[in-house]
């Protein structure tokens, strides 16, 4: 058979990201380290407030609509999806399994490393919560970090994982909703992990970075340290809170406040803005004037509080892990803070983040072919496709039979 008769089939991955502001369904293939878009569907989320589902029926409708749009644009029926989890109902903890290496020669076998992993998994999660994922963390052999302990000699093998758990009720709800759309869930993936896969490169993850995904209802973060995921968490404050603050301070309607936030708000308050006035036209009561200093003060105060809350959350987790207080310094995390997500588009946010965390901070957007997706709010769903690839079987190559040729004909 000549070579052109074999078919390389990179796996097609469908990813569903249900956020507070929007629901995105993306069908893609990973080709040469970037995501190729096959199908895309997006809807405004209804029924989710601050990351928690309030109205399941409306949410089901809107997710179903997004799935139908994605199917129509991809041209084939979706059967398996990867879903992201985010919000206050997701929690994580570190679980560690310790194994004393048996055997006279103290050589670690594959069975030993599996045994250590199994003993880590035996730790019970808190009641009412179910385990979703285990994310690999460094393996220590006699206190030394090793990449692969099999074959090495030592006495004490410690394997640790970052275990992600989810509240049972909302998890069942989510699964039931997706199953009702005749979609089977292959895997749940952590939203912050997905965002990190999209915007942080291998180099950043290896040196150490903190990725923040500032969404509309929640801000989720994940810490990479020396190439492993150290911890992750979520703060239930997002871009909507900034809008609410502006709404209350300027005494305007929500859509006007949102518009003002997008156009004029900044994360840093400059005192000499006090005399600059913003005129907003086209409102029912005529035009209104706002003081720019007010807008920036309100927004910057809220954003700083949010960043401070994230910092406290990170510090708390690190204290749990290391047993002592750990400072976030550039020595600890050389790649600093990477900001993504819809709310990261606030002006001068990296400056504020740099001040709050004491680390170099920058905003990042995901790299993809499709220009419409090169925005920070799509980082999570693009990262889902890339992260899910680890789960899939390696791409198949086999001789193209009649059915394959036929199938490829119908695949544009």
């Amino acid at each position, binding site marked *: 058979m000549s070579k052109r008769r074999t078919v390389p089939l990179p796996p097609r991955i469908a990813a569903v990201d249900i956020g507070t502001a929007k629901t995105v369904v993306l069908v893609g293939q990973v080709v040469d380290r970037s995501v190729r878009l096959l199908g895309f569907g997006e809807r405004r989320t209804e029924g989710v*407030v*601050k990351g*928690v589902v*309030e109205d399941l029926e409306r949410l089901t409708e809107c997710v179903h609509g997004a799935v139908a749009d994605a199917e129509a644009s991809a041209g084939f029926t979706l059967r398996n999806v990867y879903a992201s989890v985010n919000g206050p109902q997701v929690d994580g903890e570190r679980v560690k399994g310790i194994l004393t290496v048996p055997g006279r020669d103290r050589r670690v076998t594959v069975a030993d490393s599996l045994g250590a992993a199994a003993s880590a998994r035996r730790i019970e999660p808190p009641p009412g919560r179910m385990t979703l994922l285990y994310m690999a963390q460094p393996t220590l052999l006699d206190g030394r970090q090793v990449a692969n302990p099999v074959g090495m000699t030592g006495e004490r093998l410690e394997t640790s994982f970052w275990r992600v758990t989810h509240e049972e009720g909302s998890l069942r709800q989510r699964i039931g909703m997706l199953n009702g759309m005749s979609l089977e869930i292959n895997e749940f993936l952590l939203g912050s992990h997905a965002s990190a896969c999209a915007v942080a490169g291998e180099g950043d993850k290896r040196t150490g970075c903190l990725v923040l995904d500032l969404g509309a209802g929640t801000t989720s973060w994940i810490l990479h340290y020396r190439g492993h995921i150290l911890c992750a968490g979520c*703060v*239930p*404050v997002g871009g*909507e*809170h900034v*809008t*609410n*603050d502006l*709404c*209350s*301070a300027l*005494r305007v309607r*929500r859509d006007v406040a949102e518009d003002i936030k997008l156009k004029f708000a900044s994360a840093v308050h400059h005192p000499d803005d*006090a*005399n600059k*006035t913003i005129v907003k036209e086209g409102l029912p009561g005529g035009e209104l*004037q*706002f*003081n720019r*200093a*007010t807008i920036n*003060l*309100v927004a910057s*105060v*809220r954003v700083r*509080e949010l960043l401070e*809350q994230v910092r*406290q959350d990170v510090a708390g987790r690190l204290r749990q892990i290391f047993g002592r207080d750990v400072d976030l310094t550039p020595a600890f995390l050389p790649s600093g803070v990477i900001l993504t997500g819809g709310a990261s588009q606030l002006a001068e946010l990296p400056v504020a983040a740099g001040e709050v965390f004491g680390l170099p901070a920058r905003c990042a957007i995901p790299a993809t072919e499709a220009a419409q997706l090169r925005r920070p709010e799509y980082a999570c769903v693009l990262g889902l496709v890339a992260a899910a690839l680890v789960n899939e079987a390696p791409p198949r190559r086999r001789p193209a039979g009649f059915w394959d040729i036929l199938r490829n004909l119908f695949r544009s």
Partner: protein
Amino acid sequence: MSPAAPILLVGVGGAGSSLVGRLAGSLPGTVRCLAVDADAAALAASGVADQVQLGRSSLRGLGAGGETRLGSDAAEAETAELRRRLAGAPVVVLVAGLGGGIGGGATPVLAALAAEAGATVLALATLPFSHEGERRLASARDALVALHRAAHGTVVLRNDALLQLAPASAPVSELFAETGRWISAAIEAISGFFAEGALLPLDPGALRSLLPAPGSRAAFSTGRAEGEGAVLAAARAALASPLHPHGPEAGRHEHLLVQVVGGPGLTTGDCQAAVAALRSELGGDRITLLGARIDAADPASARVSFLAASPAPAAPAPAPAPSPSPRGRKGARAAAPSPQQLFSFAQEENLRRGLFGTSAPNLFNGEDVDVPTYLRKGIRLPSAD
């Protein structure tokens, strides 16, 4: 009903009595003042002539220390005296800071007593600042619920919002002065409803029709403006005031009382325009009352005040069947407020949280993060140009 003093202003607790004391001199003659407290020294310092000291035996001249239970007990101990003092006034206005022990504990008792005596009870209550701590706020909220039940109308003044009224560079003491100014404006407006020389007079019975039964939710605001179109501008200023709740949860009220005070050039047309502006925002579909007064002292300026009220539903829903009392607690009668009061109280609380009003509170490190940060941290915003 003595026409000499149709309004009785009662300051309850340390904050209330000191406020009333400050205002005592500047109030019109139609207002009579009374200070009620347990702390003898504070009563003496308040400067109000009529005083009632609560809990002479239990508290012995000391304050309640923030314990509302002590405050209510002390008030109940002096029921006879209070009844005597509260009698004879058609309108009783209670002023209290609900964070304190006496303020929080005694005010509902007084409101009940005054209502029993046949007066229309209007309560002006302040809630503590957010940065005074959640515990004070929680006890203040409980007291507010009880007050709702007892008084005909309750106007809540959130200290956070008061903060925004003061100029940015003012010290903290100025805030209390600002609260005083607000309350005095309120008293003035209310007394002005019934004063002589009104363009469109009102009688005290009007207030009764506005607040027919205990449990109404009320809102009050006042605004001042000068110059051309002062009346309409004053109406808009009243609406835009930080003390007036704003947002989709503010809701509309069924009863509206508007008071316009203007210079000699005040016309009925101006008044009607002001009323229209207020009605568009507030409602007032069932009853709208307009009172107008000429104030020759300040011809160029105009002041517009309104009192909006939503009465509690006329036929209260039958109380839900009492849940079987837990074993071992026979005879325990939970003093839980009825659902209506909780609902109206909750609406009041939700206004702080703005768009997130109807969702569950979002506690992070013990704070409700849905409330705007600048309110919680007490940051004053620069005024708009």
